[in-house]
């Protein structure tokens, strides 16, 4: 019993790792540019297919991570320049527009790759599991990898936002957009770069999630939903919101699924989040714009 409970806590950590990876891009774009990218899940899907292609061409996941980052960042650039830049100040329209972009991406990918899922392998290095206890289930290496990667992504993002000149400008824009632009910061360019960076993170998410299942056209939706939940719960006031939201949701989901079952676990988590929004309308780490 205790062994299972312990494994369950570890599993929750693994799930939280995936959530951080999936939600980071969405949170950063929303936090800075104020756009909720409804196509986020589809960006993840494009990242997954990129990984599948790299896999097919003989590469492994470590190669597909940077490649997926670049490919999806460029996709983000196209979407931002082509659509979003004209409607930043109309949040409702950005919702609709990015939603449409998501549908276009799904249909396009379906045309190119068909509806059959693509298989993506783990690199041999990550094949297998840590034997914590004598008998299975063991803790697979890929879960460790997901947690480590989540920490790396948060650390890199922290460094960019808080230790570089670019990050200083980003934070300035977020605090007070009009004042920042009065001071000569090119806010449009900041938005564009942040959109690219967030999209690229979605690409990485796709590349590392695909190997635990397969690259499929409709995989994006569930990750969109989970990412929104992380943001709603954690808030985008500062970077801590992402890991906090992910950790709470990941552990709650796995422990409740362990205690009851998977369906009830998800149900209870949704209910808990609805209540949490009542208590923290802006998320646990929400912030107030300074005017």
């Amino acid at each position: 019993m205790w062994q299972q409970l312990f494994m369950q806590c570890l599993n929750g950590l693994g799930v939280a790792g995936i959530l951080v990876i999936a939600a980071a891009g969405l949170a950063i774009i929303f936090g800075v540019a104020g756009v909720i990218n409804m196509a986020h899940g589809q960006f993840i899907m494009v990242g997954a297919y990129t990984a599948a292609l790299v896999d097919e061409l003989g590469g492994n996941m470590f190669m597909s991570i940077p490649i997926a980052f670049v490919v999806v960042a460029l996709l983000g650039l196209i979407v931002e320049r082509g659509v979003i830049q004209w409607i930043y100040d109309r949040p409702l329209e950005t919702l609709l527009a990015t939603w449409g972009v998501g549908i276009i991406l799904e249909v396009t990918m379906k045309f190119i790759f068909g509806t059959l899922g693509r298989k993506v392998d783990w690199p041999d290095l990550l094949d297998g599991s840590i034997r914590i206890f004598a008998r299975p289930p063991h803790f697979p290496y890929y879960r460790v990898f997901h947690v480590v990667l989540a920490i790396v992504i948060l650390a890199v993002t922290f460094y960019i936002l808080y230790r570089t000149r670019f990050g200083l400008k980003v934070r300035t824009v977020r605090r007070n957009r009009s004042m920042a632009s009065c001071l000569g910061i090119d806010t449009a360019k900041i938005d564009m770069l942040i959109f690219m960076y967030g999209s690229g993170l979605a690409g990485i998410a796709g590349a590392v999630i695909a190997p635990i299942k397969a690259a499929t056209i409709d995989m994006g939706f569930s990750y969109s939903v989970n990412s929104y939940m992380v943001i709603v719960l954690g808030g985008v006031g500062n970077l801590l919101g992402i890991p906090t939201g992910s950790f709470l949701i990941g552990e709650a989901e796995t422990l409740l699924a362990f205690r009851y079952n998977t369906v009830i676990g998800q149900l209870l988590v949704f209910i808990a989040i609805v209540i949490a929004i009542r208590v923290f309308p802006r998320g646990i780490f929400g912030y107030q714009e300074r005017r």
Partner: protein
Amino acid sequence: MRKVRRRSFLQGSGAALGGLVLGGGAPFYFARNIAKAQEGDTIKVGILHSLSGTIAIIETSLHNAELLAIEEINAAGGINGKMIEPVIEDPQSLVQVFAEKAKKLILNDKVTAVLGCYTSASRQSVLPVFEEYNGVLLYPTLYEAQECSKNCFYTGAVPNQQLDDFEPWIVANLDRKKCYMIGSNYIYPKETNREWKALLEKSGAENMGEEYAPLGHTEFSTVINNIANSGADYVFSTLVGDSIVAFYKQFKQSGFTAEDVPICTPITTEQETAAMGAENAAGHYTSFNYFQTVDTPENKSFVERYKAKYGANEVTNAVMEAAYFQTYLLAQAIAKSGTEADALIFEGLPGQEFNAPQGPVKIDEKNHHTWLWARIGKAREDGQFDIVWTSKERIRPDPWVDYLYPNKDCDFTNQSVLDRLKKPWSEEKNRSGTMDI
């Protein structure tokens, strides 16, 4: 994989939609018994499979298998000298379009019969159309059974043909009696597990746990932990779609081997093993009536001809095989009874036999389902299955298995039922043509 897979996902909503589209307002006086005039020298047969949309991949393969059969029948001289003319419609994977297209095939094209549908949702949306206008549908998918329609002939497996021998085989040959059931959260797995639990009880095996994951769920660490916790020595899986691949992969990564805890399932086919990477499936068991590796001359030549026509990389699976042989069954039935719908339904199709790739199959006279072979396959490293057990004879289809629903079955040979079904439409209270049992 993604094919929105399988069967009755949307069964409930499908039925609801079908009801909306066709309910009450359908002009029943319009064409209750359309004379199926055969103009010219061809016999028209409708083919109703999605060639676009989410389930296009699998349905296109059914479409291809049926066209292959039609081509062969025509090359061999057609039906009594008349060629079969396929009338192809694409319902675009949309449940409501299935019903529209079915109506068009019956009323406008005046087809003799329709080969079509894949999911239970699409079947349930077209059934009212076939029943109202007295058309004939041949349906190739395995499904959860508990359905009987005068106008529909089911050539895929029903649960008793996949399960009844599987569970005793596991007890006898794998020596495993502690079962953990995991399925997707919708009707097919729940009905299948109801039967499986009854089977477990019959053979004195233990039910160590039962769990359902939402459709499309791909995070199975908790389930795997629960399986370990329960002490089960095998898993019975009715997961569908994306979940299959994720579960097999994560099961292996968590340190479970097929030798320790095999996964036994009536669902995973060659297509899923290819999508997950065959090494993740190797050693696990699937129960099906057909595998590509079935060793009959008919199957060898079927696989050969299919690959010759559609490409060497194509794989065949059980549903395609059913699509293929049901075309032959229909052709033989037309040769026997002519093209008039009631003649086909009451004389031509019931009892019709064919030497299919899986072995000789026969449409049951009473319940319109099909006698099929049962097989158990062990997945290999190359994604194909080693057939480790084959039934001695073909298995009778039983839409309501005796051990759960004693004395419940449908019987279209029962004279009183027939009299009721043949009554003119206006006197028919039960519009659906299905029977109350």
